[in-house]
């Protein structure tokens, strides 16, 4: 077919070049008048145009955020220190929290009365239920953890989430048991244990992610 001699002009045409823009170009003008009556060349132009349009509309692939940090890290003179853990005391001061080692003081509940559960807060005049104190601490820590844990790598984040969920299940089971049997010391203790463990885990999560705060 005689079309093929114009194949090199098809791409220019598809890219927007017109004979009208190139008055001296006889070949281009010849091609355009050929195109008007040639189904084969029109098909090519149509297909090439679809391809070109689709190609120019392709989304960008976004490089992972860590990439810049890795590059910068290689170039910085003093790389940023990454402290995995901040002192627990600092984390503890970030939220109202019962002393982390409170549970070590063996809780004794001779009468099974929930309100008398011992906590390590030394100078309490009125005793808000231990559970409420824990909930408050948890809420504060959870918020901090949510704000910050994006800085952790996905695998670690997943481990922390999974285990937080395991603790939540333990909390739910304890609560359900307590609802069934309000005077059950075991259920009450289990609940407080689980809440305590949750606080500890959230503290650790916040501490892990806190390196951003220090920069």
């Amino acid at each position, binding site marked *: 077919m005689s079309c093929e001699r114009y194949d090199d002009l098809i791409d220019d045409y598809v890219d927007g070049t017109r004979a009208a823009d190139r008055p001296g170009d006889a070949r281009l003008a010849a091609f355009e008048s050929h195109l008007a009556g040639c189904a*084969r060349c029109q*098909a090519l132009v149509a*297909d090439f145009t679809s*391809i070109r349009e689709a*190609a120019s509309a392709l*989304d960008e*692939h*976004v490089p992972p955020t860590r*990439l810049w940090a890795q590059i910068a890290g290689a170039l910085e003179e003093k790389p940023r220190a990454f402290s995995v853990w901040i002192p627990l005391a600092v984390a503890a001061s970030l939220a109202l929290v019962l002393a982390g080692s409170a549970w070590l003081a063996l809780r004794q509940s001779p009468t099974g009365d929930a309100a008398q559960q011992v906590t390590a807060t030394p100078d309490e005049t009125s005793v808000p239920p231990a559970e409420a104190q824990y909930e408050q601490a948890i809420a504060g820590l959870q918020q901090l953890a949510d704000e910050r844990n994006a800085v952790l790598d996905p695998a670690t984040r997943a481990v922390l989430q999974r285990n937080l969920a395991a603790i939540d299940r333990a909390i739910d089971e304890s609560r359900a048991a307590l609802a069934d049997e309000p005077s059950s010391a075991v259920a009450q203790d289990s609940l407080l244990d689980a809440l305590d463990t949750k606080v500890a885990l959230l503290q650790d999560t916040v501490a892990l992610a806190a390196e951003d705060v220090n920069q």
Partner: protein
Amino acid sequence: MFRSVPFAAGDEQRGSHAFPSNHPADVRTADLELAARCRAGDADAFEELYRLHARRLYSLAVRMIGSADEAEDVLQEVFLQAHRKLAGFRGESTLGTWLYRLTMNHCLDHLRGRQAKISRATASLDEDGAAEPVAPAPVVPSAISRMDLERAIELLPAGSKAAFLLHDVEGFEHREIAEILGISEGTSKSQVHKARMKLRVLLSR
């Protein structure tokens, strides 16, 4: 598979808008200034360089190599190399073109490393598509799905893939592609033509 992410508004622009085909003095001055600041150890300047170009270079690398992981490595190599070589940047090309050239070279190195594995697979695609009779009607859907296009691009041989990505996806002119790939403008045009012909075959319904 590729991680395809919606184009975020703002930020850099694509294709010929970002890299005007003429070479205005203000672009050159800006490039030299940025290069100078980078050389002087201005970390912000280098970060600016990264922010201006990383996305497009990464997209290019992902499509050239076909692996996000390796594309990441390439980007890293490119920027670390760029940092070292900025001392020698004289402004004959734009910073962008210069970075594209580095990126393409690394991508082609990666592909050559894999060549033995895929040479048989792509051998048939290297054949000149002009042997294929062209039907007298459009065969490609007028709206091509992104995934189909990305997959089809992946199957192109390195040379025409490079030219096609730079031309149709990134919006460079043949003159700029010639500079980036170290080929003539005529070769650039024929490579783009070959790519389009093959894609036409791969995408036809």
